[in-house]
């Protein structure tokens, strides 16, 4: 107990020192000008990145604060995530009912899971035009396949005894799905969610960078605009925001959910 505690605080200390050294190195390079003319572009000093971070929110770009961009990105993200998860459960549920659906869906998962969403972009633009639908579609694509794979694996791994205990109590059909299969597969579902979220977040940003939607611009468009206008301090500051959002979702949302379900139930894999 005290040993793991000691090791953890040691780990935290190492990480803090490492980050501090990195920042000092950055600042030294920025101030020394060893990168020549482009030094200010590649290594803007920390204080100007800090100022840009604040400016992103107060001034923003095109008269819109960074909050607006974050809001748009998150809206696409959550919509796509929601639709993707719902579809994954729906199709996996159908797979449990019909062997035919199961085999067809297995094929679809193994094919589409390998297809990067960005490669679909041209096709999707033809279908949806330049609209939020494109971005949401890509998020759904990023979520649906890994999520389905995990949900199906999870359903298949449910111990027979839970199913029989459930049937013994009179559960069948949907009752069995919601009463036994879903909770019993929770650790699989959560790892599916983690993969889905990571892919969706990546897919979303790349899609937004390749083509921003003027009517509802997101973070990807923002960082791309900062690059074209050579506001590199703002660019780095935006990267920081993107990292922060990732960290908040991972440690502020997904891990607590895991702790309060699979962790609490002793079902962590």
């Amino acid at each position, binding site marked *: 107990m005290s040993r793991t505690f000691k090791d953890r605080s040691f780990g935290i200390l190492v990480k803090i020192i490492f980050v501090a050294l990195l920042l000092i190195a950055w600042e030294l390079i920025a101030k020394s000008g060893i990168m020549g003319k482009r030094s200010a572009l590649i290594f803007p000093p920390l204080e100007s990145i800090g100022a840009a971070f604040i400016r992103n929110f107060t001034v923003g770009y095109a008269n819109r604060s960074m909050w607006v961009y974050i809001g748009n990105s998150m809206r696409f993200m959550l919509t796509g995530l929601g639709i993707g998860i719902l579809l994954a459960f729906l199709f996996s549920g159908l797979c449990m009912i019909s062997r035919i659906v199961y085999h067809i869906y297995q094929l679809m998962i193994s094919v589409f899971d390998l297809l990067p969403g960005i490669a679909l972009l041209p096709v999707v633009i033809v279908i949806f035009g330049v609209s939020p639908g494109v971005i949401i579609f890509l998020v759904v694509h990023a979520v649906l396949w890994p999520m389905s794979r995990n949900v199906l694996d999870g359903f298949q791994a449910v*111990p027979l*005894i*839970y199913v*029989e*205990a459930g*049937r*013994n*109590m*009179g*559960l069948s059909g949907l*009752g069995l799905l919601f*009463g*036994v299969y879903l*909770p*019993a597969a*929770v650790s699989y579902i959560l790892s599916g969610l983690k993969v889905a979220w990571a892919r969706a977040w990546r897919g979303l940003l790349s899609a937004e960078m390749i083509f921003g939607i003027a009517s509802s611009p997101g973070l990807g468009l923002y960082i791309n605009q900062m690059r074209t206008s050579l506001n590199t301090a703002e660019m780095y500051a935006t990267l920081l925001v993107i990292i922060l959002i990732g960290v908040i979702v991972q440690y502020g949302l997904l891990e607590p959910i895991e702790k309060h*379900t699979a962790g*609490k*139930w*002793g*079902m962590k894999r």
Partner: protein
Amino acid sequence: MSDIVLSVTGLTKTYHDHSEQSLILKDLSLQVEEHEFVCLLGPSGCGKTTFLRCIAGFEGYEGSIKINGSERKGPKNDVMMVFQDFNQLFPWKTVEKNVQYPLKLSGIRNAGELKAHSDRALSEVRLNGYEHYYPHQLSGGMKQRVAIAKAFCLKPRMILMDEPFAALDAMTRRDLQKQILELYNKEHCTVLFVTHNIQEALILGTRTIVLQKEGRIVLDEPNLLKKPVTPADPDYGTVWKKLESAIYMEGDR
């Protein structure tokens, strides 16, 4: 004459395994009356588990299995199964919720009523104070007690138990035997109990049945030893020997 709860006639069960076909139970017939505690003994592989699984409705079969006069069609909560496996509780539900869940499914919606039922059942198996534990926080014996409380709580027509204590140490086993007898006497239920342990069969049962290969009944008689049964009973040794020779008759000894 009391009511017949379980009526099995001409039960035949075969498993089909990759073109190979094996006969597990052959033309098995048996009747169990209300409030009997039937202990089922027999050598490993003679089909005891298969028999219980047929009664519980988990398996297809030929012949007839009737509960209170109506034919079995798949699992139903009027016959509750207690498995040998400790992991039969739902890990995502607390002890209390595990006990309440079948009651809820059977139509009891009132939270107070559910609580009253589960509290009573859990105190019968001496698990008060553990209501809010999750199964992974319990020992094997405690998990089996919850499973037993869950089964009795529902007041089913019949309770099937497949070596529920086989993996427990002798002391825990004795405690659980005592608790199950108390429950049996209080709740007036009918039990079919599979065990490998002759002593356990004599302590618990009101009737003893020994099966041999293909589910052939080679011994079926009332357990007339005076309760509570102790090895000190003058007839204990004779009955014990008779059962032992019935179980090991086919030359594995």
